């Protein structure tokens, strides 16, 4: 251990200052959204855009939350997102494993074809997907959202998982095979646990995609029992006048679970990374 020189300390200080400034830039929106959710239009549009509210209008929250069906919407959002994550993670890990680790002729081609899912502009897919869902008699059920969300999230999942699976040494597969492990056991009991950070990352990204999706959620669902939170928030915007305060409150309510889930998953990533960096 040698003593740090003065310039080194100086460099460190500058580094931390930069990190902290960026952190403030990233945290500011949360503070802003919180104050925004307690204001009225006059304050929001120019009267007082970043200060603390002059009057704390907690009524915005009661307006947003008592607005009939927020509970149902929230529950639907949670179910839809949870199912989407489950299916996406399962399908992506299995497919990535098959395409990257197993030996078959079309594995590379399959990878390229599956990626096309990420490239479709969602609005162009609205009508075709609507018709497919209608023919499966799923319109107005949460399945009409879970299935397309999963379909559109799988390519992303495959990409993320392949980026990390690449780093897991192939010798593992070989030694497992030599030990007489079946391919299914190899995947489920050896590879899958090692993919934990990848799975958590994939879950976070899938969550974001489906939790905030609006266009399909609006178009495929016309029954309150199956609507999601984004649609509920959207319906608070008016044709000729919009009260933004309650919308801010609703957005706050929609954002909190996202943050909580992210912090949970992210510490999971951290733990699994510390616990078992793969011995190569």
């Amino acid at each position: 251990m040698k003593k740090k020189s003065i310039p080194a300390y100086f460099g460190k200080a500058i580094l931390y200052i930069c990190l902290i400034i960026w952190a403030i830039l990233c945290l500011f929106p949360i503070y802003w959204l919180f104050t925004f959710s307690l204001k009225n239009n006059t304050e929001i549009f120019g009267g007082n855009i970043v200060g603390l509210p002059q009057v704390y209008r907690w009524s915005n929250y009661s307006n947003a939350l008592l607005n009939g069906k927020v509970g149902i919407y929230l529950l639907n959002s949670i179910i839809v997102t949870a199912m989407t994550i489950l299916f996406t993670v399962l399908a992506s890990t299995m497919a990535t494993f098959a395409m990257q680790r197993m030996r078959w002729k079309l594995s590379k081609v399959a990878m390229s074809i599956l990626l096309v899912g990420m490239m479709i502009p969602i609005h162009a897919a609205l009508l075709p997907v609507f018709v497919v869902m209608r023919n499966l008699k799923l319109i107005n059920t949460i399945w009409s959202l879970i299935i397309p969300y999963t379909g559109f999230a799988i390519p992303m999942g495959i990409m993320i998982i392949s980026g990390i699976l690449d780093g897991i040494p192939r010798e593992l597969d070989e030694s497992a095979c030599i030990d007489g492990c079946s391919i299914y056991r190899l995947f489920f009991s050896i590879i899958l646990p090692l993919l934990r950070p990848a799975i958590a990352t994939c879950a976070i990204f899938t969550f974001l995609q489906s939790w905030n999706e609006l266009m399909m959620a609006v178009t495929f669902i016309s029954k309150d029992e199956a609507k999601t939170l984004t649609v509920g928030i959207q319906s608070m915007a008016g044709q000729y006048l919009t009260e933004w305060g309650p919308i801010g409150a609703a957005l706050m309510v929609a954002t909190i679970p996202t943050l909580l889930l992210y912090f949970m998953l992210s510490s999971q990533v951290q733990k699994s990374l510390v616990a078992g960096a793969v011995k190569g």
Partner: protein
Amino acid sequence: MNKVLSNKKAIVFFMLPAVLFFLLVILMPVLMSFYYSTLNWDGMGSGTFIGFQNYKKLFVGNVDNFPLSVRNSFLFLLASVFIQIPISLLLAIILSNGVKGENFFRNVYFVPVVLSTVVIGQLWMKIYHPDYGLLNTFLRSIGLSSWAHGWLGDQNTALIATFIPTLWQYTGYHMLLLYAAIKSINPEIFEAAKIDGANRTKIAFRVTIPMILPMLEVSLIFSVIGSLKVFDLVYVLTNGGPAQASEVPSTLMVRTIFMGYQYGYGSAMAVFIIAECVLFTFVVRKIFRALQRD
């Protein structure tokens, strides 16, 4: 060994779920969009087959400024690849290098990604507002009132003004991907490099970046596709305005299909966007193949 890894039944088993979803949700829209794009069709009633006329209309004798929107999305792409990704990579390397408060910073930097487009859009409108916006207020307070103007309403600044929020929002997104990849590297490799007396910069370029090339490739592909398809924030902030200064292919496509009733022509735009994405993804992969061979 080979026998186990080329077990046909197992391959089918592992591929099946993804393939099923693909058939149901992805294949149809692609085929349909391609079919629609060969029609003169308003989205209702009957369409007439016109071959590749719609594609021609995108560039030859174009009236809706589609080429301009493509150019704008290319600028987006360049900004993402050369500004956003390097920043994300730098942050990922710094954070994984064991600064104090690593977890805190990593969590905080991801916060903008978690917020929905509506929130980010509203926030930036408050920043850009010509009268009471934070940006103009700041400029006036340091005596640069002459610089203050309507950022989103000025044809010269609208495009850049929509870039910045998007770049800022997704920096944390790419950072997290790269961070996870760096953290998956076996620490012994870093130890070995340190013992050889390599300094931090050297380790970053000689060890870290080569080791995370696969994830860097993923990140770049996301970024490329994201830029070519960019829609949400542009829609909220300017909807392509003023006078199409910040138009991107997706905003134009949505208006063409749902407001302009030109479903066939709009589908040609969709197919064009898909083709662009395929092409660029292919290029990125080729580049990385070459890099990994070195």
